[in-house]
């Protein structure tokens, strides 16, 4: 080696060592200047709205945080993996985030079935996971130390449906449910809630997820003189019920889950004028994208995603990411997974988007307990009430 080349090697080695110097930090996915968050959910396929759209919303928060200097001086790096709403794909996606991308935490989980598929892998890895949209109770009950949810879980939705019916003065409450895995979990939780309140449903009807006709169900509910009907089903079957109930002139209070939250589309699917007049659905968030309270987020959305339409799923991502940022902030400068989990364990975040505070405890990681109830008013979704199951 010549003298010149020996001299040239010194700055080269120095420059190579710099990234390692800045990366020196005891915790996976964290450097002195960055924290890497893994986003898990469907980026493609029919369930992309619970994945990609929520992530796009979350990224607005992370990018704004970075613009303001980061959290405790660390810029947030986002890395996404596609679970395609499929349990098998979700296992692979979770493994990539944990082992290849070496993320600090996972912020994600859209389709419940996919999240249930990824659950054992993430649980075993002990990588903290903040779920943003999956509603399956089994992900957070019983409580796993590192797993939290900012989504309304199925059982909280069910209890909120009943609470809302009672708050509307309903005396004769009926259930109509689809008894697949999704519906059964909610139906069973709902029956427990009925029992706790010491009341029994006046009718308990079933409907297939893809029912084309719900005249028999509407007639049976009408015969039972139900003044409120809790719908534990999907928009397709729900639309058939609303249409056929309106057809026979039966107009009880109808209370759907978040699955039926897209009321303008539901109105089109029903196709009968006035059929949604007494229809309510649960929403994870208090505001709709077009509400004046969301003007600042709308402006940022347009800035980051020009030409796209902001949806309720983007708001869900924004709201959930605010919780993650708050926990990162509370975890302090010396960021570790343990300090993050500790921060999440006692978080009590007053959200401007969720209907109430996101509050976790060491023993309860189902942190979202406030449901917003929305209705179609003049063709627009409007929040008309909120219920709280927070103790």
């Amino acid at each position, binding site marked *: 080696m010549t003298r010149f080349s020996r001299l040239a090697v010194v700055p080269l080695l120095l420059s190579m060592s710099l990234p390692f110097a800045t990366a020196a930090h005891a915790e996976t996915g964290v450097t002195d200047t960055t924290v890497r968050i893994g986003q898990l959910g469907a980026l493609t396929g*029919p369930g*992309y*709205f619970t994945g990609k759209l929520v992530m796009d919303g979350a990224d607005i928060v992370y990018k704004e945080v970075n613009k303001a200097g980061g959290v405790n001086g660390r810029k947030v790096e986002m890395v996404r993996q596609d679970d395609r709403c499929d349990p098998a794909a979700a296992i692979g996606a979770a493994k990539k985030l944990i082992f290849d991308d070496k993320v600090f935490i996972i912020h994600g989980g859209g389709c419940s079935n996919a999240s249930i598929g990824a659950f054992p892998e993430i649980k075993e890895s002990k990588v903290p996971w903040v779920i943003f949209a999956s509603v399956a109770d089994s992900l957070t009950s019983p409580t796993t130390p590192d797993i939290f949810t900012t989504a309304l879980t199925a059982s909280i939705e069910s209890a909120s449906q009943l609470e809302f019916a009672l708050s509307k003065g309903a005396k004769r409450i009926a259930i109509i449910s689809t*008894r697949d895995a999704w519906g059964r979990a909610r139906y069973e939780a709902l029956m427990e809630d009925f029992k706790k309140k010491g009341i029994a449903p006046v009718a308990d009807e079933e409907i297939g997820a893809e029912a*084309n*006709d719900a*005249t028999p169900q509407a*007639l049976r509910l009408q015969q039972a003189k139900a003044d409120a009907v809790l719908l534990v089903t999907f928009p397709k079957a729900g639309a058939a019920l609303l249409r056929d109930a309106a057809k026979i002139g039966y107009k009880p209070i109808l209370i759907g889950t978040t699955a039926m939250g897209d009321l303008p589309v539901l109105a089109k699917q029903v*196709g009968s004028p006035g059929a949604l007049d007494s229809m309510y659905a649960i929403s994870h968030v208090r505001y709709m994208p077009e509400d004046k309270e969301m003007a600042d987020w709308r402006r940022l959305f347009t800035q980051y995603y020009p030409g796209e339409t902001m949806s309720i799923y983007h708001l869900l991502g924004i709201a959930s990411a605010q919780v993650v940022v708050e926990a990162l902030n509370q975890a302090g400068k010396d960021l570790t997974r343990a300090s993050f989990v500790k921060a999440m364990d006692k978080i009590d975040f007053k959200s401007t988007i969720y209907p109430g505070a996101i509050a976790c405890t060491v023993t309860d990681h189902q942190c979202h307990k406030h449901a917003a109830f929305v209705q179609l008013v003049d063709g627009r979704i409007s929040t008309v009430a909120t219920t709280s199951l927070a103790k």
Partner: protein
Amino acid sequence: MFAYLLASGLTLGALYALAAVGLVIVVKATSVVNLAQGEMFMFGGFFGFLFHVQLGLPYVPSLLLAVAAAFLMGGVVYRAAFRPLMKSGLVSVLLASIAISFILKGVARAIWGGVGDYVPFPPMFSGPPVQLGGVIVLPQQLVVLASSLALLIGFASFFRFTETGKWMQAMADNAKAATLVGIPIDRLQHLTFALSAGAAGAAAVLMAPLTQLYPDIGFGIFVKAFAGAALGGLSSLPGAVLGGFLVGLIESFVAGYVGSKYQDVSAFVVIMFALLFLPRGIMGGAAMRKI
């Protein structure tokens, strides 16, 4: 309650009858149950969606164009997938029909799917329900019933009064004898598949305002149509019509009087009943004794 259940059972029955007719004419022509019949229905519906919703054409021209497009698609599918395998045995043809069903579903998802939503289809007449006697029905229910009856009468007339229809009957009764007297079997099988897809397309466009459209709608419709065809007789066109209506009525009355939890299962009970007690169906005739 009875009148309402009757009205909704007849509407569903009309849909199942039309789908069952499409199934039976293929069975009669080729002795094969086309497992992609449900997807032919689905695709026909999306053709209607393309013309009516996406291109903004009025309902009736959209219906006619969708039937024509489904007819062409049936012909193409026969040429591409079924004809080359007709001499390879029943299993090959059945497997081909399964493959076609997956391909059609995949194509529909690529074109019209993607967001997991059910696509609303505007009815022919929008407006409030109408009162008929003591029963209130949706205008589209009347459209479905009237159009289905007209189509079924059209099918019956085609088989009874046209030369092609009579050839098809002859082919169905005895394909070898039909060949010997010079009936063009291949051309007729081609036409049969096209007609079957056309019937499915008509049923889909008529029912879409009541069922909505989605790429996976085919399987459910196929099961109900098959139940109708099995009950009425897999080799009988009037049997398919009768069976289709019976399945619709059974579904409606069972859900109304016995319990809504039995609504979906009733079609499968009908299939089991038909296989066990009426293996040739109500109008399938007596079993032939081979000598």
